[in-house]
């Protein structure tokens, strides 16, 4: 008979800073577990066997979740050892756990499938992952582990170029470096991290944490060339002359705009521009930092995905009254539940079933209001399972002195204009091994998906690394045979 274990139904909560305090700064909202709290939460895990564990199946990078959680409990008397063992398990699949622990939509992935959910709260997998990464970083345990791993890497003598230092590219780079390939990342911006640096705000993902994760990749031997814009500084054809394989992880680099009159009025930002100014260029520290951002008293954010929440909550921290305007209803909001919850706690208003049709400006070309058409939902559903919406012919005008458009992105045009690269509807076409129409050139993340999540991009990075490894192994063997 199996050992009977006591089921603890309630999740051990992570401390959070109160809303009234956090709307005044960009300091991180969630404070994370202490070791004691983490062990308490870890103990709730039922430890499903590896082959069955539904959480692993729900994770795009297949982290051995019960495996890392069990280490925390097993070595509970030795926190450093517990974390080192747990980190070792995570690193086998994921080089950026401090990031994924914070920004993954766990509720739709690992946690969605958690068996504990049938009797109580699901295990707080994301926060446990984050705890392991944070504790390891603070205590230098990650460095120790790297020190053990790096000398064991066997050099393959082949070179791989990676385009874009975002989640997909960083993951592919980490995996390939661990396999012994000589990896160079080409990054257009002045800092590596991609959307983790320019898109996700400090209060959700502190930049110092991203920097420290990237620093570990450098210690694995990954070279990062910033200020290199592929498509301008160097072309994919040129990269293929120098490298044995190329991975495109250039992301969804071009914002979608609302096709309505007045879109270029001053005070109308794309979410990309607004968040880049605030996060990457630290406009919230203006004039200490030189890049300004204009946030008026009344801000309207158009869209209801995670990017919209990030933009809205950032604008709120400048003291603005913020409204999220969404053309569909609350059930179709695509942002994570936690983000919507945080946004509401911070006083952000939600207006549903309104769709912008015109931006109204003043005599100086600055936005002062947005005209919306009221929408209604039909019973009929579209291909994504969302209810179809139609205009009602009724309109409403809302005042706004800043508008942020957060309705999605297209892949960056500089990359997709490469001759011979097959592209459909702006997305790079890949086969089941993530290889593009150009032999030796692979792609993943938003460049092939349009837009998705950090972890899906990382999943692609990992899959691509595996495919590149197979491709290059074959190439090595062929060269050996021909020699």
């Amino acid at each position, binding site marked *: 008979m199996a050992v009977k274990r006591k089921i603890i139904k309630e999740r051990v909560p992570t401390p959070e800073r109160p809303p009234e305090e956090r709307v005044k700064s960009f300091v991180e909202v969630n404070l994370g577990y202490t070791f004691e709290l983490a062990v308490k939460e870890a103990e709730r895990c039922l430890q499903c066997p590896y082959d069955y564990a539904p959480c692993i199946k729900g994770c795009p990078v297949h982290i051995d979740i019960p495996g890392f959680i069990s280490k925390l409990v097993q070595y509970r008397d030795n926190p450093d050892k517990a974390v080192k063992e747990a980190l070792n398990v995570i690193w086998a699949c994921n080089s950026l756990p401090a990031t994924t622990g914070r920004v993954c939509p766990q509720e739709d992935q690992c946690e969605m499938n958690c068996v504990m959910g049938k009797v109580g709260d699901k295990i707080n997998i994301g926060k446990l992952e984050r705890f392991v990464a944070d504790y390891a970083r603070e205590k230098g345990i990650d460095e120790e582990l790297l020190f053990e791993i790096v000398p064991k890497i066997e050099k393959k003598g082949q070179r791989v170029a990676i385009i874009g230092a975002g989640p997909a590219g960083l993951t592919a780079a980490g995996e390939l470096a661990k396999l012994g390939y000589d990896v160079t990342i080409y990054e257009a911006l002045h800092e590596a991290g991609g959307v983790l640096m320019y898109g996700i705000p400090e209060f959700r993902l502190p930049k110092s944490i991203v920097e420290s994760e990237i620093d570990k990749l450098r210690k694995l031997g990954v070279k990062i*060339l910033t200020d290199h814009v592929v498509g301008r500084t160097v072309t994919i054809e040129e990269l293929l002359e120098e490298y044995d394989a190329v991975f495109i992880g250039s992301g969804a680099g071009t914002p979608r705009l609302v096709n309505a009159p007045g879109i270029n009025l*001053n*005070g109308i930002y*794309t979410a990309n521009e607004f968040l880049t100014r605030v996060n990457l260029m630290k406009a919230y520290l203006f004039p200490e930092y030189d890049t300004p951002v204009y946030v008026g008293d009344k801000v309207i954010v158009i869209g209801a995905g995670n990017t919209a929440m990030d933009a809205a909550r950032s604008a709120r921290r400048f003291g603005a009254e913020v409204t999220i305007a969404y053309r569909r209803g609350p059930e179709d909001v695509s942002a994570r539940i936690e983000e919507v919850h945080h946004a509401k706690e911070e006083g952000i208003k939600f207006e549903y079933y309104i769709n912008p049709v015109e931006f109204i400006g003043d005599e*100086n070309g600055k936005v002062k209001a947005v005209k919306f058409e009221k929408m209604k939902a039909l019973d009929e559903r579209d291909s994504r399972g969302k209810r179809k919406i139609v205009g009602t012919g009724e309109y409403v005008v809302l005042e706004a002195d800043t508008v942020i458009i957060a309705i999605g992105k297209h892949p960056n045009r500089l990359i997709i204009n490469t001759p011979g690269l097959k592209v459909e509807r702006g997305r790079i076409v890949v086969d089941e091994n993530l290889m593009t129409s150009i032999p030796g050139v692979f792609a993943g993340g938003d460049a092939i998906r349009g837009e998705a999540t950090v972890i899906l991009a990382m999943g692609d990075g990992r899959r691509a690394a595996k495919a590149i490894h197979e491709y290059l192994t074959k190439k090595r063997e062929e060269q050996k045979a021909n020699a």
Partner: protein
Amino acid sequence: MPYKILDKKELAMNEIWYKIHAPHVARKVQPGQFVIVRAFSNGERIPLTPVTWDREEGWITLITFVRGKTTMRMANELKPGDEILNVAGPLGNPAPMKKYGRILAIGMITGIVEVFPIAKAWQEIGNEVTTLHVTPNPMVLLKEEFEEAVSRHIVEGFDLQPGWGMQEIAQELVKRAVAKVKELLEKEHFDMILTVGPAGGQKAIFNVVKEYGIPMHADLHPIMVDATGMCGACRVTIGGEVKFACIDGPGFDAYKVDWDELIHRTGFYAPMERLAMEHYLKQLQAQGGEQ
């Protein structure tokens, strides 16, 4: 990835010339393209145009006009041997390299710096290029270089009057530019016009040029942040369509540009830029006070 300043000097009042080691740019840059420079860790990303370059030695030269906090800090704080944090590029599309015939290439104030590589290349492929620099007298730039590179170089200078602010300078600039362009177009035939400079000046010149129906290429300078097509700060309306100057431009058919929108958009941050400048000047004063 720091980039070493190989040389630096003041060319004219508030016009600073930098020679910078940036081999990745030098290898690839074409006339009409630009770079994004971020000089300091808390600095902005600003677009600047390589004026000359050496592909083998791996350097480019840039000229800045001191007008905001960033350009002033660069002028004050950087010396030869120092490093600039970032030089990204080359960015934007090269200017079209065609045989047009007789070309008039107009640069207003620092705009002339961007005219240089394009005008020189146009002359080299067999065009007959006249360049016109409209500028306050203390800011004559690259005069000898132009005289050597193109068929004819005209400087239309004017004296700054005491008490003039940016507004008055801009008004005089436009007045002078328009008068000179009219004079030239009355007397001579041109097949193509190029303008670089403040959007208001470009619009005024365009209004003259369109009377004559001459094709006109305008290099635009909207505000940019990432300059790789990602942020959309630089969007401009061209022929009724939204374009991004960083990846679709920076050069466009002047007949299709929505000039008033461009003028509004380029002026949006002026009050905040003044604030940043005041903040910097206060810092400088405080430092001076401690010494």
